[in-house]
């Protein structure tokens, strides 16, 4: 007899818990199938020198951050000071993937805001972006020594995510 009254209450509590948890899920963060897979191959011209190329193999042998950015992307501007600061600290080399941008705009952007990148690859058509499953710039990949993608941040890095997730992972991979 008691169960008859407790059952609806139980279902209600279950629903509240599920919906409550759902409030904190971000549907824009689509889990990438590339995590723990080798970073896709690419060969692209350098942003700063169209005559030179950068390829996946240039990233190997060290733990790197690959930051997808564009001068037209507002959120990139938001995270940029963090990247500049991180680059200055020398904890990890940051490579840029300049995504669907105009070379001039991108260079002007870096000149104005500072350039945290060891090098930026120039992906004008966004083809490499597709290979990396980019859908919301900025995105940041943590790539280990062997060239395996270990983590992906969708959207701008924050001080919090950097300090509590990304940097600890990088230290672990470097260790």
């Amino acid at each position, binding site marked *: 007899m008691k169960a008859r009254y407790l059952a609806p209450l139980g279902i209600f509590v279950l629903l509240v818990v599920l919906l409550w948890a759902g409030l904190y899920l971000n549907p824009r963060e689509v889990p*990438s*199938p590339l995590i723990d897979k080798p970073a896709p191959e690419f060969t692209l011209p350098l942003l700063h020198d169209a005559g030179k190329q950068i390829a996946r193999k240039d990233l190997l042998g060290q733990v790197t951050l690959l930051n997808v950015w564009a001068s037209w992307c507002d959120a990139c501007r938001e995270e940029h000071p963090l990247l500049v600061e991180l680059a200055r600290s020398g904890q990890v080399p940051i490579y840029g993937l300049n995504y*669907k941008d105009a070379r001039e705009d991108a260079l002007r952007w870096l000149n104005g805001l500072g350039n945290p990148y060891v090098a930026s690859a120039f992906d004008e058509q966004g083809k490499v972006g597709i290979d990396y499953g980019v859908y919301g710039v900025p995105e940041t990949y943590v790539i280990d020594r062997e060239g395996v993608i270990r983590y992906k941040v969708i959207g701008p890095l924050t001080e919090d995510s950097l300090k509590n997730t990304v940097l600890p992972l990088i230290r672990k991979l470097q260790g």
Partner: protein
Amino acid sequence: MKSVLAVCLLLCAFSLWAAAPVPQDEKLEARYRALTSELRCLVCQNESIADSHADLAKDLRNQVRAMLEQGKTDQEIMNYLTARYGDFVRFRPPLKPATVALWFGPFVLMALGGGLLVAYMARRRMRVSNAPLSAGEREKLAALLHGAGDEGKG
């Protein structure tokens, strides 16, 4: 009479159209339309890449078209995209252990609900069985009916 003729001509026209061999382009076009409407745009997530105006959707449409023109099969194109964007890119995710609940959950819940309903109805039917009324009950019933009738009159 005229309208009948018109309809006949129209039907003839349709049959001609149906009989004509479908050119390669049209077949590709149909596959292109089918594929792009099966693929979710990751930027505006409730639109297909066929409908979306997002830049990425345009790029992916071009990619699908290019792959079709290269003679890739639908499956190859789907695999290409899910390798990059995950199953989320498909509006109809494939059946695998992680998606079993998604595919069959609603049916299980429906069966469960239906079962509960049937059980409830059966129990209810048992309670309102055809046992004849006792003398006391019959008296009560008569009083109720009679009383109600009086009130109606008054």
